[in-house]
């Protein structure tokens, strides 16, 4: 390909594949890549310290309420379902059900936080605070950070719900629900790993 006479568009599969991704979607993915590194860093540190702690972590872990944790996992997984169904119904232009699913998602998210608060209070009553030991530092640090992410997701979903309650532009609503969903499911995936890490080991 010499001087100014290069082909107008080179045949470049990868290139076109990238262009076809909606900007919003790939933007969310780039953001998630960075989030993976945040939680990845925390989780690696936790795992390594728990290896180093020679059983201290496992001992401390017996004091967390794994039942509540399990219930919370169920709640969060279900909220993922309602979130993705919201997308499905939005694409089918079924407004009533879209609204209902978004509402359920928000409700389930709040339920998760509620249960988490119950856990926190009972643990703190028993005298387990972030400063108690390294395990509890990680426990509160990681679940706290996860909780903040969840709050962010809930806020976004409330915005979408409001948008859905008004007369929505379908194209806009779908895209937003899809992108918000990506984030919501990611927060779910993080919990899927945090639960066994903190409760079951």
């Amino acid at each position, binding site marked *: 390909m010499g*001087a*100014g*006479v*290069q082909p*107008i*568009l*080179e045949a*470049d599969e*990868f*290139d076109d594949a*990238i*262009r*076809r*991704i*909606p*900007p*919003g979607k*790939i*933007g969310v993915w*780039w*953001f998630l*890549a*960075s*989030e*993976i*590194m*945040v*939680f*990845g*860093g*925390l989780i690696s*540190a936790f795992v390594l*310290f728990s290896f*180093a*702690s020679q059983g*201290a972590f496992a001992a401390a872990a017996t004091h967390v309420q794994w039942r509540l944790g399990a219930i919370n996992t169920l709640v969060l997984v279900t909220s993922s379902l309602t979130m993705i169904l919201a997308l499905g119904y939005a694409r089918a232009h079924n407004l009533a059900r879209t609204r209902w699913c978004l509402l359920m998602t928000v409700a389930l998210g709040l339920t998760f936080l509620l249960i988490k608060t119950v856990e926190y209070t009972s643990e703190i009553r028993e005298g387990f*605070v*972030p*400063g108690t*030991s*390294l395990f509890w*530092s990680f426990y*509160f*640090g990681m679940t706290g*950070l996860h909780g903040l992410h969840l709050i962010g997701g809930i806020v976004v979903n409330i915005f979408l719900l409001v948008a859905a309650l008004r007369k929505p532009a379908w194209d*806009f609503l779908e895209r937003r629900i899809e992108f918000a969903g990506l984030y919501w499911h990611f927060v779910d995936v993080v919990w899927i790993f945090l639960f066994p890490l903190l409760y079951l080991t």
Partner: protein
Amino acid sequence: MSTAIATAADLAPVHEHELGFLRRYIFSIDHKVIAKQYMTLSALMALIGGGSSYLIRWQLAWPETSIPGWGPVGPDNYNALITMHGTIMVFFVAMPLLLGGFGNYLIPLMVGADDMAFPRLNALSFWTLFTASAVLIASFFVPNGPAASGWTGYVPLSDKALYTGVTWGQNLWIIALALEFASFLMGGVNFLVTGLNLRTRGMTLMRLPLLVWLELTAAVVFLLSVGPLVAGAIMLLLDRTMGTGFYQPDRGGDPLLWEHLFWFFGHPEVYVVALPGFGIMLEVIPVFARKPIFGYRMVVYSTIGAGLLSFIVWAHHMFVSGMDPRLASPFSVTTIMISVPFAIILFAMIATLWGGSIWLASPMLFALGGVATFLIGGVTGIFLGSAAVDIVMHGTYFVVAHFHYTLFPVVFFGGFAGVYFWFPKMFGRMMNEVLAQLHFWVTFISFNLVFIPLFLVGLGGSPRRIYELSSYETLKHLQPLHIIATLAAIVLLIGQLPFIINLVYSLLRGPRSERNPWHANTLEWTVDSPPRHPNFVVPPRVYRDAYEYSVPDAVHDFIPQDLAPEEAFGIRGVAD
């Protein structure tokens, strides 16, 4: 494309004329205005950072005297000064200028997009950074002063107030960095989506201007490296506020964890700053040599290679930190291997000059000056990369001189090259060449006079971050070198006056510039100076890569990317 435009559209359905002052110049969502805001912010922070360097240098040269225009500086103030100097220069000058400023201004124009993919996110990321700077500056005025544990904030020094006496200063430092990271996280996502998905027709990946390639690589490197440090910063903040013990050995924590997490980000961060600087040089050199960049693909691949390598070299900052000595040699190998991609990039720049028709205008001078000085930073890096020699060099002034020789060329030589090169595009006026040349020569000479003596101070064995040499008998003889460096530093600071004068004068009185004063090829030169918002009347169509200079039997010695072949080679001239 249409998706991209749709998104841009439903986010930014605005036109300048119907905007008031506030929406147009302050809370604007035009990437060109936001870019100028970034540049202004980094210029203001640079004044603080430069001022602190004056205090630091004076203290080192004449420790017993009180500093003219300031007064005496105590050891604790000195530690605070070096901490804030490093933090400000890296996070609040270099990144806002090279990514926030040039990246924001040029990526959409160069790929033929009307604006960033997410204009509001773009504005939000600037205002987040603005808040971060405000927080950092506020930390100067809180009780017990600003952070004083070095820009690396090593624990336990930064972990407990009783070690430095700093209380809220350190917390605000952490918060400022967290906000800064959030800002550039948003910015990085925006860059990547804009640069990859908003490319206009015909703008294939291998036709992207190199600046875009390097900015995008920098963005990816930042996004993927910052996470662990965010995690580490959260732990540090919890340690300081919630009484946890992540970094306190007596409670099962480990100080080396912070060093690992910090440098896992800290080293890639150097490339986040360096690559855009190189990008500017790579844009300027072909234009003023009137030659295609030598080995475009080589440069692209070495850039990506350098980006990947930067993730597996961090422990070279920790050779003598007490980490497992078996880690040293592998990290030595990867570290020294970094010299290969950067050598390729630098050789490509030099080879581009060969057989060219070179015009040493101020942008070219700064670009070449940047290459010439960065070579010193690069080669001295090999000494530090070798674990054995690093036993001697680590934590000495050799390191200080080394990283100033890597960062100053890319940030300031690169940055000034960019300003002199794109000023006509940004403001529609030319800058004064005489003042520019004066500015270059003063900066170039005084910069080298500051830091070459510091290499010798380091070889002489002087640790860095010490308040005065005189407490060590064997270091006393190095004092004259410090005095030379300080005098040169003062000249360097004063030497920026021509630039400031030039800037102000040209903004007001500079001669009007046409669209394409340098006869360059990339798309930003095909629109008005300054460009309108949205950038392009019709989405441009790209026919070739960005460096078609001096093509045989073409009408002119340059062929803009969007010029139809028949116009480029037919009898009709270039429609400029």
